[in-house]
């Protein structure tokens, strides 16, 4: 069993296969390395700093580029630029920095440049609780930049998932050409647990969609989508002479500043995720088969919720847990299916915010949705969730 302590640089492989005792932030960084991250740009902020520091050490060892930027505005711009030139690129931040990144997350969505943004959530708003847990950036991940667009956001619930879902995030970003968020919370980021890293050959890899036509072919249109609504992507320096802009653009990538191309483009940006939601959505079901009370919880709160469900079962209460692993797209279809099955009598939504996922559940049902919220700074205990279940 190896530990987190760094081995000699030259001997450190990109994929540190083995069984580790590892913190969530470190596992996230190792997941990025295993996924083939080439470029990291970031700015330190608690509780995500370990991702940044770990990559500062590890990325140069495997031939990648690490740059500490002057701020988060620069960090996100740099990773979009690097990705436009072909890199798998990453940044990591927390609420205040995530807020600063919003405009360019919209740029990445509009230019369809894949990139991964790790947001380790702390107590918020504003500077809030720098070292305290929060889960209140869920809506910001989805709606934070102006306008309509779509993203994918994963919510790990353990260091192992920090590793696995960061790999998943890179693959999804490249597959759909979207910005993808890994939404850890402070507890998960700072929790140390067993993390199993498989050998490099077993790391799942989805390549970025690339043009099949050669550079200079007049048929090639940089923003002509395939049937899956995703256009293949050419990189800087390959001879395609592509133009990318945040302005509304046509299939050539040229500005097209009128209603019709705008309608077409914005709808496609949203639809390319919507139509693939069934493939993208991930959730974990725990004791749902006969559940009359369904707890919907993510991140560190899902760990308390699982304990609460076990406690309820011991009291003979038929409770179960639905854990959204993707916050976006939200597991809407699964919840609708559970409601349609007719067994569920109530939902309980515990989360460390004042009701973001709860609102998503309320939209889907007339059944009671019990709220278990706290603003941040401490986890919600199993006992508190149990109270709501048995109420």
């Amino acid at each position, binding site marked *: 069993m190896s530990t987190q302590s760094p081995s000699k640089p030259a001997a450190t492989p990109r994929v540190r296969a083995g069984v580790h005792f590892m913190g969530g932030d470190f596992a996230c960084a190792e997941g990025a390395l295993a996924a083939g991250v080439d470029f990291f740009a970031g700015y330190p902020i608690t509780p995500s700093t370990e991702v940044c520091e770990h990559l500062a050490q590890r*990325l*140069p060892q495997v031939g990648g*580029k690490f*740059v500490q930027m002057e701020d988060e*505005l620069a960090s996100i711009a740099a990773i979009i630029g690097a990705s436009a030139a072909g*890199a798998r690129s990453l940044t990591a931040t927390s609420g205040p920095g995530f807020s600063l990144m919003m405009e360019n997350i919209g740029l990445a969505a509009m230019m369809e440049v894949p990139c991964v943004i790790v947001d380790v959530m702390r107590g918020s708003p504003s500077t809030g609780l720098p070292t305290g847990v929060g889960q209140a950036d869920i809506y910001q991940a989805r709606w934070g930049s102006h306008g309509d667009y779509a993203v994918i956001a994963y919510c790990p619930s353990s260091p192992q998932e920090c590793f696995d879902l960061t790999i998943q995030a890179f693959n999804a970003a490249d597959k759909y050409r979207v910005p993808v968020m890994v939404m850890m919370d402070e507890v998960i980021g700072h929790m140390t647990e067993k993390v199993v890293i498989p050998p490099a050959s077993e790391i799942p890899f989805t390549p970025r969609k690339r043009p099949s036509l050669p550079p200079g072919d007049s048929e090639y249109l940089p923003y002509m989508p395939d049937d899956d609504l995703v256009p293949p992507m050419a990189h800087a320096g390959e001879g395609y002479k592509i133009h990318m802009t945040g302005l509304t653009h046509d299939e050539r990538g040229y500005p097209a500043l009128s209603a019709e191309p705008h309608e077409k483009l914005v709808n496609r940006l949203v639809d390319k995720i919507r139509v693939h939601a069934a493939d993208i959505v991930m959730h974990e079901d725990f004791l749902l088969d006969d559940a009359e009370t369904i707890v919907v919880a993510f991140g560190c709160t899902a760990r308390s919720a699982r304990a609460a469900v076990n406690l309820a079962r011991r009291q003979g209460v038929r409770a179960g847990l639905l854990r959204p692993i993707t916050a976006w797209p939200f597991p809407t279809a699964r919840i609708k299916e559970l409601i349609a099955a007719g067994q569920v009598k109530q939902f309980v939504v515990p989360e460390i915010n004042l009701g973001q996922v709860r609102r998503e559940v309320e939209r889907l049902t007339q059944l009671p949705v019990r709220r278990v919220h706290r603003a941040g700074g401490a986890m919600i205990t199993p006992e508190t969730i149990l109270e709501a279940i048995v109420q």
Partner: protein
Amino acid sequence: MTTTGPTAAIVAKKHPVDDLLRADRLPHILCPGCGIGTTMHCYLEALVESGVHVDKHVCVSGIGCSGRTAGYVKVDSYHSTHGRALPFALGIAVYRPELTVTVISGDGDLSSIGGNHLIHAARRNVNMTVICINNFNYGMTGGQAGPTTPMTAKSGTTPYGVADKPFNLPHLVNAVGANFVARWSVLHARQLKDSILRGMRKPGFAFIEVLSPCPTGFGRPNDVGEGIEEMLKYHRRCKWDDKARLEDVDIDMLRPDSPVIVGNFVDRDRPAFCPATGAPPASPTGATEESTKERAAMKDAH
């Protein structure tokens, strides 16, 4: 473009920079008398002369009239967000060091909303050429004052006149250590082209400020006049002095007697920005043909 019409003779079938323009995007949006077209031309001439293969050159802009340049040049070109051209370009330049990168954008974009990135990119000495088109205002949004607008100037947001001292951009960029710092006006087309070329050939951060008429946003509201009149002012007032003390090269277009100092002011050889490398990679990064997974696997073998 060739001249057409009943009396016009065809002087040339092809202009030397025709291949570097997206002809299918013309006509451009620029106003008559605007200096951005001339600047773009000088940039493209420098690119041709540099001998850099056009496939290995990347143009990045921010937002503004000047920022629209990225949409007209036929190279890989990125029209980023307002103020963020420099970090966007840094991502490309650092990840693909074999590419040459030029940022061409406005004074507001680069020195106001993007001012922090300007001082940091210059401080780091990132390997790129920055062409900063200074038209003394925010042209795109209809003529408002910015950090380069002369004191007392009238604009949409300064109906009573600008109250704060403008930037002296060469002094600023030099102070943080850029390798090459110059200032020209669009009247100095040849010197400007040569200066951009020097910037492109220079490893590290090259910054070229280009004084450029904006009759619409700056000239007319301030009695500077149309494009041609602003050019005449450059003709009368510009003094070429490569050795000028940079703390003294402030510009005041509104004071008739005040000289405008131009020149190639700084040419030094500080090492260009190069992020740390740890153990030598098993395969070079940037080989985009190789899949990421192959790279990962190869690296793992060592």
